[in-house]
C-alpha cells in the first residue's frame, strides 16, 4: 500500500523509523517494530544512517514486510551511482516495496568509514526525477523498461526550523518539481517556526509529516543543538528536562514534550514522523498522549 493513498483520503499519517543492524541478525529490529510500531501506518528503514555501515535498507524492509508491517525504503545518493540506484529501485518494486524516501545522504566523512568514496552522482532532487522517469517506463538514459513500470509513493525531507528557511523552501520546490509526493521533516522542537514554515509550504500542495524526536536527556538535546542541522531545542525545554531527573530518565518528560509539540502542530500538517532513536517502546504512549 502506498502511503500517498492515505494522504489522498485525508488521513493523518503516522510513521516511525528503524535502523538495520550492523550484522546479519534482524530479529531484534523486527520484534521491536512488531511490538511498538504495528499500530502505525508505515516504518522508514534507514540507509546506512549517518554514514555508518549497516545491513542494507532493502533487505531490512523485506524482513519488516514479512512481519506484516509497511516499510518505507530510504535511499541515499552517498553510496551508489545512478545505475545502482535505479537497479535497487527496480528490485524494490519487484519485492513489493512501494514507499520510498529519497535523500542526498550524509557525507561519508561523518560516519565510521571516513575514507570511503562519497558518490553523490545524483542528489535528492535528481533521484526523485529518476524515480519519476522509471515510473514512466524508461530509465534515466531514456531506454525503455521491459514490462510493467514501477510505481512508488515518493517522499523527501525538508528542514522547517533551519536557519535559512528561504533556501529550504527553494529546495523543497525543486523536489516538488522533480516529482515528490510527500515530505517528512527534520525533528521539530519549535512549533512556532514549523507553523510559519507550513504557511509558506502550503503553496506546494504536498502532504507534510511533522518530524518528532522524543528528547531523552539534556545531554542529547545539547548535542543536537551543537551538531544537528536544523534542530534547536529551546532553553525552556532543556529546563523542563532538567527539573526532574528521574522523570526524564523514565522518558515521561520527553514524551510529554513531544506530545505537546505534536498537538500544537497537528492542525498545520498531514501526519507525523517519529524518530524514536532506540525509544521505540515509548511510541505508543506518545501517540496516546498526543491524542492520535
Amino acid at each position, binding site marked *: 500500500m502506498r502511503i500517498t493513498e492515505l494522504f489522498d483520503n485525508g488521513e493523518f499519517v503516522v510513521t516511525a523509523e528503524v535502523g538495520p543492524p550492523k550484522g546479519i541478525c534482524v530479529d531484534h529490529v523486527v520484534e521491536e517494530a512488531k511490538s511498538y510500531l504495528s499500530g502505525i501506518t508505515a516504518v522508514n528503514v534507514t540507509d546506512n544512517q549517518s554514514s555508518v555501515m549497516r545491513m542494507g535498507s532493502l533487505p531490512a524492509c523485506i524482513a519488516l514486510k514479512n512481519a506484516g508491517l509497511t516499510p518505507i525504503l530510504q535511499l541515499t545518493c552517498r553510496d551508489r551511482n545512478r545505475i545502482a540506484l535505479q537497479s535497487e529501485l527496480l528490485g524494490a518494486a519487484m519485492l513489493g516495496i512501494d514507499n520510498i524516501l529519497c535523500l542526498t545522504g550524509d557525507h561519508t566523512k561523518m560516519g565510521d568509514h571516513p575514507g570511503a568514496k562519497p558518490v553523490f552522482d545524483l542528489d535528492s532532487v535528481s533521484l526523485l526525477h529518476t524515480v519519476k522517469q522509471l515510473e514512466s517506463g524508461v530509465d534515466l538514459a531514456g531506454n525503455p523498461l521491459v514490462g510493467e513500470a514501477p510505481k512508488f509513493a515518493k517522499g523527501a525531507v525538508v528542514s522547517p526550523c533551519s536557519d535559512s528557511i528561504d533556501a529550504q523552501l527553494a529546495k523543497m520546490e*525543486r523536489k516538488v518539481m*522533480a516529482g515528490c509526493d510527500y515530505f517528512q521533516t527534520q525533528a521539530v522542537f519549535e512549533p512556532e517556526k514549523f507553523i510559519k514554515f507550513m504557511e509558506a509550504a502550503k503553496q506546494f500542495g504536498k502532504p507534510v509529516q511533522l518530524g518528532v524526536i522524543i528528547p531523552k536527556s539534556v545531554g542529547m538535546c545539547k548535542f543536537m543543538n551543537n551538531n544537528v542541522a536544523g534542530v534547536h531545542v529551546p532553553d525552556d525545554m532543556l529546563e523542563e528536562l532538567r527539573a526532574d531527573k528521574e522523570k526524564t530518565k523514565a522518558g515521561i518528560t520527553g514524551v510529554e514534550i513531544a506530545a505537546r509539540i505534536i498537538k500544537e502542530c497537528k492542525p498545520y500538517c498531514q501526519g507525523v514522523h517519529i524518530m524514536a532513536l532506540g525509544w521505540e517502546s515509548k511510541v505508543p504512549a506518545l501517540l496516546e498522549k498526543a491524542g492520535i
Partner: protein
Amino acid sequence: MLITEMKVGETLRSLIQGKVFTIICHGCREVRFPEQEVNAFVRELAAEGIVTGTITTDYICNPDFLQMRLKGRMAEIEDADTILVFSCGVGVQTVSSYLEDKRVIAGCDTYALPGYQGVTPLEHDCDQCGQCYLNLTGGICPLTACSKSLINGQCGGAKNGKCEVDSNMDCGWERIYRRLEKIGRLDVLKCPVQLRNYATDDEVSR
C-alpha cells in the same frame, strides 16, 4: 592543461539581459582558448549596439590584476546589465566575486587536460567539468564550493551556514542562494533538474 570551449551562442543569448560588458581572457599559456569564435560572437553583439565595452586580457584569475584591469572601465561596467566573461571557470568566479552585485555570465565551458595546470591562483577553484554551472549558481561553482558537489541545491547538512563536513567551510549553496538573491536571480533555482555528465570526452558527449 585545460581547454575552454565557447558555449552555444543561443544559450548565451538567452542569458544576456540588456547591455553587455564583455571580458575576454586569453588565459595562461596552459589554456587553449577559442579566440576566433569568441571574437566573432562579440562582434555580433557589438553590431547590435548592446555592448558597452570589451576588454581582452589575460590572467583575470588574479584578483589584484583583474581589479587593475577593470579600474579604468568601471563606467562601462556600471552601464552594463550583464557581464559576459570568456575564460576558464576560475576567471569567471574571480569576476563574479569582484563584481558581486552584477549579473556575471560564463561564456565558456572548461575541460581538463592532463599535464601542467599552470599558475592559476587557487582562490577560486574550477573543476574543469566541461559543463560550466556558473550561470545557474550566481558565479559560484557548486562542484568546488559544496563538499558533496551538489548541483540541485543545498542538502540538509548546513549548521549556522557552515558545512557538515568542515565547520570552517561556508555552505556553498548558502553562498549561492545569497548571491542569487543579491543579483535578483532566484528564478534560476526553478531550472530543470541538473544531471552531471561524466562522459565529457569529445567522442562520448556528442
